[in-house]
């Protein structure tokens, strides 16, 4: 501790930083967190626009997409098959790598970890800054791919070899190369960030903040960081290997040179399945944080919640093969992956029931963050249950590569991670920016988003059960899909509604940023440490001494205590003899 306070002291010495050091090349974890949040929100606009382009083509194939005529002049706004492939490839790439990861792991990871464990900053502030700027460079490289001849990557976000590893098969040259280079740089960013998170959580907790007094969102970010540290380098290496195949003539993945196309899939999914949990674990943590606050109850089964996240993290390494049941991998191996995949459903079930248990007997207030957190829980239930179909190998033979999979991933990543992100933004906005968001606009954002989300993604299950393949350009080319086409139209109308439903969010965000009412120290009457710092917290977070922690993070409605929340920092003597 003495080392930290000494360095904190050294920081205080030259407190006045210029504009560049405060807003651009900042080493303050809160500013870096905000930078990641803005990066993610900006990229979400592009990712969402691509989604609407895809949906237009699927509902009304080969008709001009409104507004796209300005960009696709030669075709008058009609999507060609290669452009369509590029659109869905980049939609997924951007949403996964440049929206959900920056917002949840990058933004809230940075903002919350020091504030909630009682540290003045991250363990390695400069590394933290480099992590953001590496991610920013990765984003620029990824965007540059749209402007090179041949177009951007068009082999799916999974970029299976040899389609993605041989230029002739797609006709995409530097687009795919930039895609690989960008992910390589992003991998380096993630490594710098995750080392930082892990070190900070292990070494820099405030006095009294034992591991099992940490808020569950910190547990989730800590576990996410471990997954990032161990999973992303596998993708980073695989991206380098594929780039070598493409530009240096190696043949890691090319059968004619002695390579193995399935090697890419093994490497990709060895990263890719932990990645799914990297996307969802922070949202689980966020829900575990928000439900107790607005149910005014301790989280139900704190230890089970923490251990189930640890179990999910361990199991996530041994389930990746369920993406490859029909890939040509030895079917005996498929059987082993069925067993592990069924097992990983158990900790998810535990978490769901514990969230319900948290609501049971509570005093529930349906605030905007709470509504989004509840949407996370209910949508994650659907995404989790639909996963059981895929875990059963025989059923997966039929639904693999259909819209059932698309429905599933969107219930997990949009219904789960994005609702989690919205919940977090509404909940921590007062702390992050020192102002309250508008409640009416929040409702106007939440309810249409929830309805249109389900209108968009639920019918995709039905399409998938009908056999509708994913990644096809024109469903009307298939006789067996023609009777299902009206679902595609319905889904697209839902998607347009979902896009429009984000306008109140944008208005609310920017209006509140500049003109929202000033936020008090602790607007939600919550117990965790970040609410003891000013809103927004200054450089180094707490002016005087660091807070001392006396109890777990969810002491709501303690019988002996007059108020219905007992902050972590209230000394034990004042709170009576009760110990937890």
């Amino acid at each position, binding site marked *: 501790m003495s080392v930290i306070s000494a360095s904190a002291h050294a920081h205080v010495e030259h407190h006045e930083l210029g504009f560049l050091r405060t807003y651009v090349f900042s080493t303050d974890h809160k500013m870096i967190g905000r930078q990641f949040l803005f990066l993610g929100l900006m990229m979400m606009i592009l990712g969402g626009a691509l989604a609407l382009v895809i949906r237009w083509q699927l509902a009304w194939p080969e008709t001009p997409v409104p507004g796209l005529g300005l960009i696709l002049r030669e075709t008058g706004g009609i999507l060609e098959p290669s452009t*369509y492939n590029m659109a869905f490839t980049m939609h997924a790439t951007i949403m996964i790598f440049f929206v959900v990861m920056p917002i949840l792991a990058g933004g809230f990871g940075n903002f919350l970890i020091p504030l909630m464990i009682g540290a003045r900053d991250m363990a390695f502030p400069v590394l933290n800054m480099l992590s953001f700027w590496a991610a920013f460079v990765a984003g620029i490289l990824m965007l540059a791919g749209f402007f090179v001849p041949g177009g951007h990557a068009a082999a799916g976000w999974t970029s299976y070899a*040899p389609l993605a590893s041989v230029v002739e098969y797609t006709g995409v040259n530097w687009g795919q190369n930039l895609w690989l280079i960008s992910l390589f740089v992003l991998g380096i960013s993630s490594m710098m960030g995750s080392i930082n998170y892990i070190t900070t959580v292990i070494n820099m907790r405030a006095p009294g903040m034992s591991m099992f007094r940490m808020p569950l969102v910190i547990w989730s970010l800590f576990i996410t960081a471990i997954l990032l540290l161990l999973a992303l380098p596998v993708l980073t290496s695989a991206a380098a290997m594929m780039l070598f195949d493409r530009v240096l003539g190696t043949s890691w993945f090319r059968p004619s040179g002695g390579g193995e196309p399935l090697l890419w899939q093994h490497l990709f999914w060895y990263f890719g399945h932990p990645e799914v949990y990297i996307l969802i674990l922070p949202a689980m943590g966020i829900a575990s944080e928000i439900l107790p606050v607005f149910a005014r109850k301790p989280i139900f089964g704190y230890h089970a919640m923490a251990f189930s996240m640890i179990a999910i993290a361990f199991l996530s390494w041994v389930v990746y093969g369920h993406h490859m049941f029909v890939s040509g991998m030895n079917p005996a191996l498929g059987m082993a992956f069925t067993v592990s995949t069924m097992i990983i459903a*158990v900790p998810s*079930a535990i978490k769901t029931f514990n969230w319900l248990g948290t609501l*049971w*007997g509570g005093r529930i207030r349906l605030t905007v963050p709470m509504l989004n957190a509840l949407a996370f829980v209910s949508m994650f239930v659907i995404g989790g249950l639909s996963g059981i179909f895929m875990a*059963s190998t025989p059923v997966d033979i039929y639904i693999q590569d259909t819209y059932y999979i698309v429905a599933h991933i969107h219930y997990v990543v949009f219904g789960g991670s994005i609702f989690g992100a919205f919940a977090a933004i509404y909940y921590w906005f007062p702390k992050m920016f020192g102002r309250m968001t508008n409640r009416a606009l929040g409702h106007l954002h939440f309810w249409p988003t929830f309805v249109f989300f389900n209108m968009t993604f639920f019918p995709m299950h039905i399409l998938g059960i009908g056999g509708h393949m994913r990644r096809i*350009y024109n469903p009307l080319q298939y006789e067996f899909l023609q009777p299902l086409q009206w679902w595609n139209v319905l889904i697209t109308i839902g998607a347009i509604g979902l896009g429009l439903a984000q306008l109140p969010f944008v208005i609310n965000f920017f209006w509140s940023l500049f003109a929202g009412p000033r936020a008090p120290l602790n607007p939600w009457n919550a117990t965790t440490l970040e609410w003891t710092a000013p809103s927004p917290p200054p450089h180094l977070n707490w002016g005087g001494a660091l807070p001392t922690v006396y109890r777990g993070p969810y002491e*709501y409605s303690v019988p002996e205590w007059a108020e219905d929340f007992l902050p972590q920092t209230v000394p034990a003597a004042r709170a009576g003899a009760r110990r937890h």
Partner: protein
Amino acid sequence: MLDWWLPENVSTYGKDIDWLFQLIYYITGATLVLVSVALVAFLWIYRDRPGRRARYTHGSTPLEIAWTVVPALILVLLTALSVPAWSRIKMTQPDTDFVVEVTAKQFNWQITYPGPDGRFGTADDKTLLDEMHVPVNKVVRVVLKSQDVIHSFFVPQFRMKQDVVPGREIAQWFEATKPGKYELPCAELCGFGHSGMKGWVYVHTPADYAKWAAETLTAATPPAGDAPRDEPRREEKAKR
């Protein structure tokens, strides 16, 4: 009850898949209803009202054990039921004398019959483009190969799907139970022509198949590029 959404099944093992699908559907459907009803009920019953204080509890070990063990048992059961079907479909190859080679390329299925001598790689092999003819109630082995990228052999009504990987020969089987004409799309993204890469599987009665085979497979091989085409192929060409 679910017939309206799963396409008609016309293969022997398809009914095993459909049965498992329906079992999981009812289990997950019931779970979803229970969880959703509980969630909405709690939101209503425990809504914020003046003068009420939330129940102070950190959990319940018996409850938590129950909701760990019950899902675990259900999932063990589903695993146990999935394994035999998987083993039958993917891990065993029933004996058959009917073998067809399928070579995928961007963006066609090339279907090769061994010809009268019953062997592949000989002069009397016969290759058709995007159409496969098989007799009903007969185990058919397809040997899947690719010339370029990964494709996926998918016949929805057979509940059959297998990726076709360059550099490998993957043997699969099916046994169709009803004569008819079934679409054969490619289910793995394979390039700009992925959408529309499809063929047809014709399932004939034994008599019809014998007639077709006599006309097409045993007849003297016509010069390459001049293979007889039948109606659906032309229809499809016109549509593209």
